[in-house]
């Protein structure tokens, strides 16, 4: 028995149908910013690069220093980038009218890739995970980390367009490290925002270049600043729409682009929404695998029965 052209065509048709099914992926609902979501607004026109936020972050999160020894023997806590002992970093960008400073930490995306890909929800939006950490309340939109359900697969690092989650490479029992908006510094006795989180960086910033608040209010404030001094700013709030929106928002000075600051150009649709739509479509809510299994089992059993019958006939001769 040879494989006929018809068999091949049948195979191609099935494969084609599968492809078409994947192509007509019904889009997964876009995630809207939670009304009570909190975040930060960083105004690059105000930052003077003092790095007070950097050291405050290390103190608040009990992170070790990144010791660097200078040529004359002086030692500095000088992290070059976010890393497993640095959840917040200030970088400098050389621009026409002097340096501009850029603050980098977790963006607390509205629809985060890391949350979409995390196998058991170790990274999850506060209060919306599969498992709740002590004191978690839904609504803040803070992306928190539960080390007890993390297997260290590092898929979050692949997914994050901002390269925020970091891994302890030189540790036998490593953790994923990233900004959790100082949720652990929240004071439950307080009313309002400080009962949710209390980012140390915002607390110490001497110029209020970075401020903590409700995302909605921060967005309004950002737009107000742009409107009040249009010559001072880029006419755009980074994070309002980028990658489905982020809860940390950025203002850049006129003449310095967001990509210069190190923020990637992203489509408005979150990568999580794209990836989940494409991946889930062929499953039809789990109907496809069950139907396929039953169909194939029946077919294989029938094939086998026929074959056995044929063999008996042959042996009978």
């Amino acid at each position, binding site marked *: 028995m040879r494989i006929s052209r018809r068999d091949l065509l049948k195979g191609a048709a099935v494969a084609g149908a599968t492809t078409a099914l994947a192509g007509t992926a019904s889009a997964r609902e876009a995630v809207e910013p939670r009304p009570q979501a909190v975040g930060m607004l960083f105004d690059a026109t105000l930052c003077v690069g003092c790095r007070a936020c950097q050291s405050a972050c290390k103190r608040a999160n009990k992170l070790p220093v990144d010791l660097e020894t200078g040529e004359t023997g002086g030692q500095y806590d000088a992290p070059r980038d976010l890393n497993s002992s640095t959840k917040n970093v200030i970088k400098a960008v050389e621009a026409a009218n002097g340096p501009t400073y850029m603050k980098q930490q977790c963006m607390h995306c509205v629809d985060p890739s890391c949350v979409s890909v995390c196998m058991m929800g170790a990274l999850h939006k506060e209060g919306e995970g599969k498992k709740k950490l002590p004191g978690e309340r839904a609504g803040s939109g803070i992306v928190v980390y539960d080390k007890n359900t993390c297997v260290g697969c590092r898929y979050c690092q692949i997914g994050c367009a901002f390269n925020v989650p970091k891994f302890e490479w030189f540790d*036998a029992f490593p953790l994923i490290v990233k900004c959790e908006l100082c949720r652990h510094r929240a004071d439950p006795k307080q009313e309002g925002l400080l009962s949710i989180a209390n980012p140390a960086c915002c607390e110490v910033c001497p110029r209020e270049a970075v401020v903590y608040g409700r995302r909605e209010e921060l967005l309004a404030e950002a737009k107000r600043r742009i409107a009040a001094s249009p010559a001072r700013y880029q006419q755009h709030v980074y994070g309002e729409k980028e990658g489905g929106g982020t809860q940390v928002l950025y203002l850049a000075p006129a003449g310095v682009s967001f990509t210069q600051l190190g923020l990637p150009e992203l489509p408005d649709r979150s*990568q999580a929404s794209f990836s989940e739509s494409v*991946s889930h479509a062929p499953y039809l809510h789990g109907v496809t695998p069950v139907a396929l299994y039953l169909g194939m089992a029946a077919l294989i059993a029938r094939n086998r029965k026929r074959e056995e019958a044929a063999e008996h006939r042959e042996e009978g001769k």
Partner: protein
Amino acid sequence: MSAHDHPKAIGGSLLDRSMLVLLALFGVAAVVMAYRFFAGVGPVSNMTDGFTWGIWEPVNVVVFTGIGAGAYSVGLLCYLLNKGQYHGLVRPAVLVGAIAYTLGGSSIMIALGRYWNSYLLPWIPWWNLSSALLEVAICVIVYVTVLWIEVLPSILDGAAASRSPRWAAIGKTWGPRLAKAMPYIIALAILLPTMHQSSLGGLMLIAGPKIHPLWHTALLPTLFLVSCLSMGFGAVVALVTILNLTWNAKHDPKLFADMSKVNAGMLLFYVVLRVADVVWSGKLRFLALDFPTLLFVAELALFLAPALMFLSPRVQRNKGRMFGAALLAVAAGAAYRVDAYLTMYRPAGWTADGKPIAAGWNYWPSLGETIVTVGMAAVGVALFIFVSRKFPVVVVEDVRDEHTHVGSGPAKAAASR
């Protein structure tokens, strides 16, 4: 090849020179792996926060399981399309699959930072169904089990023919019982790879901005599924050719020619999909005289070459040329997979015109990573040799049998599939 061909245990010395070399390679790898558990992943690898998966995920998991997909490819032909003539290929293909997937899974345990938490993975309430990796993990855990169950008939056949009465009894009782359940296991063995091989492509959907536009597409799952079939068919032809040269395994040129025509279809289907996708999604503008374009063209050529070879009667008649084409088919899928996962991955992404954006990370596999990958492959080959020496996996060419067709051997009992 008729249904009356029966696999035989090859026998012979278990610890010959090649076996010692393979085990030595694995021994070195085992030292590196052990060290990793004391010192962390960093000291043995060049992985960084930018290139966080190094080669272990793209090669040990994605390429190894692509080679192991021979079990899936042959299973589809043999059981679903009911081409009984391929029965003789099932056992070796399934054994390779079981070994490749086991090694893929073990490699992941080395790569996982917090491996001790992975015992929680079967706990359904914590499953994040949006995670392609979760789907792959669960599917692979189940599929490894299914594959070893599929290997069991060989083991039970071996037991049934054993001189020890106790083993013989076990083989004779459980062989037929397992044979009855087999259709339901085989259906699972076809469903699971369909799911996780496409999810292996789906894994990279989330990394949109980081993967070159010529590689990042909504068709990633489909392309991975098709490429696992072409790799699987290629791997089976290559494997049986090697077995024919070393152990005089039955090599039926006509059967291989037929199967490889199916593979040619797969390879061409991949090329058509890939090119059509690039054209339709308006990505032709990324073609230029640069490395990504060169790689893209080289990949397509790697898929086209074995397809055309498989279709040529001159190649079909020649064992050596068929072997070459089969290796090319495996290489094509492997290249595509490594490119999509690693070569065309840039942590800071690509500019709108397809140039990599500079970031502080560079990657080339470390000696330690390479040793682990090579050691894992070596122990896989060693396992294959061990099992086929001890148990009836490979159908051996029998000259007397060839002409008379009397062969209704003792192994006929139990679950001859």
